[in-house]
């Protein structure tokens, strides 16, 4: 991991990493990746990946409307809204 790799991943995560800390970040992430590389020593041939510890399957519910409109409550905590819409910088010229 070098600072350029870090900036590439940070872009994927839409995360600002300032250039002055990128080298430090690269170093610490390398340490984490060295730790997780111990996984390669495990013999996992034929072992099915486990996503849920109790192997439960996704429950389905009836296709019914259960939530009322709470736009005002949700927008009351938004950084910027106008006329019931969330405001963001201009996307399309």
């Amino acid at each position, binding site marked *: 991991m070098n600072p350029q790799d870090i900036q590439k991943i940070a872009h994927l*995560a839409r995360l600002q*990493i300032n250039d002055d800390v990128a080298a430090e970040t690269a170093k610490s992430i390398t340490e984490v*990746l060295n*730790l997780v590389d111990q996984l390669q020593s495990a013999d*996992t041939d034929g072992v099915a990946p486990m996503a849920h510890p*109790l192997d439960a399957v996704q429950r389905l519910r009836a296709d019914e409307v259960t939530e009322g409109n709470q736009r005002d409550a949700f927008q009351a*905590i938004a950084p910027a809204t106008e006329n019931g819409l969330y405001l963001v910088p201009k996307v399309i010229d």
Partner: protein
Amino acid sequence: MHNLTLAEQKAQLEAKAFSSVELTQHYLERIERLDTDINSYITVTAAQALAQAEEADKARARGEGGVLNGIPIAHKDIFCTDGVKTTCGSRMLENFVPPYNAHVVDNYLRAGAVMLGKTNMDEFAMGSSNETSYYGRVHNPWAPNCVPGGSSGGSAAAVAARLAPAATATDTGGSIRQPASLCGVTGIKPTYGRVSRWGMIAFASSLDQGGVITLTAEDAALMMNVMAGFDHRDSTCIDHPVPDYSAGLNDSLEGLTVGIPEEYFGEGLNPETEKAVQAAIKEIEALGARTKAISLPHSSLAVPAYYVIAPAECSANLSRFDGVRYGYRCENPQDLEDLYKRSRGEGFGEEVKRRILVGTYALSAGYYDAYYRKAQQVRRLIKQDFDNAFNEVDIIAGPTATSPAFEFGAKGDDPVAMYLEDIYTIATNLAGLPGMSIPCGSVDNKPVGLQLIGKAFDEARLLNVAHRFQQVTDFHRQAPAEID
């Protein structure tokens, strides 16, 4: 009043020895006097607490009220509370006031409990020392220059300092058990799916589980009776009958087989901690249980597997914090990408960013099989180790943490040193099993915890063993000398 257990307070409230208002006022006064030094609370809801206490007293006068009527408790600041700021220990949510209650919060409200406030925690529950909180570090009540553990460090410190008789907490890799161990209190992480995660801010969804921190196993049973249960709003919550956790507390331990995993007593374990844990196991034997040496051969791979799976899930979960709908937004964004990047870059702390980056990398094109898939395969091997062990034993016992509370900054800048703090607790989360930590001694006047691990949905058995142990020991009754 504050040295009474929750069960004792419940009995005294029922006997009208004191009122909920008196009890609540007593805790609020203690928090005001002592918490400036400990910093276990991020938010104290004094006025609301007193109003709830008054309601509880009125309900009692009418002969009504839930099972925890009038008992003051604290909630970890990861549980959403309607109208009360919920920060998750992050600058990102410094001004976040949720419009709804977490399922768990509602359960306690219905039971008549009073909320004293919201407890401090590592940012987004990522940490083992509470040092990653945006709201300042929490001081261990037993040793003010030491960490309380994490991520539920505020909950553990608040209970240890008698600033609440009980507090909710969450555990993704040890975040209930490790701080309970370091603060000399009782903590239980239930089976994955036992407690609803609805309204509990997500970190790693296949590992996160809500639980409680209390002074005693008896109190934990009372709290669990209210917390556990099915909730259709959490798709991973499991519809499984909830027993009365208080009912079997006094059951005999005759015939119980306790597994002692050799991997939990190897290199890295503080010899004094080991001594205290071994003595506790002898005590459980004296109560009628027998012990059996077992092996959990993939134990050393638990931390590496966790540091793929947890960051991967965290990077997905935390993508919701975008500076648009709620939470922190940067000043003067130039365009949408700048808005996303700077809001997240400025709103998240260093450890959270590190885990988002690791998770994003592990899930990125070309790396998925080598990291995420491999980790999920190892996760199954770890689960199989426990399945094999539980064919021979009823519960597993060992240390919760390698050593007692360490000093602030002791783990330096090396993230891996901190990650290894959870070496004995992480496997339990990967396997979805219930785990507990109970005080079992001390080293240099700092508490040591005994960890108990059970079969899925066997919380009642853990509480039973812990309670019987606490009937013949007094570690759980000891309070930090400097806190009066």
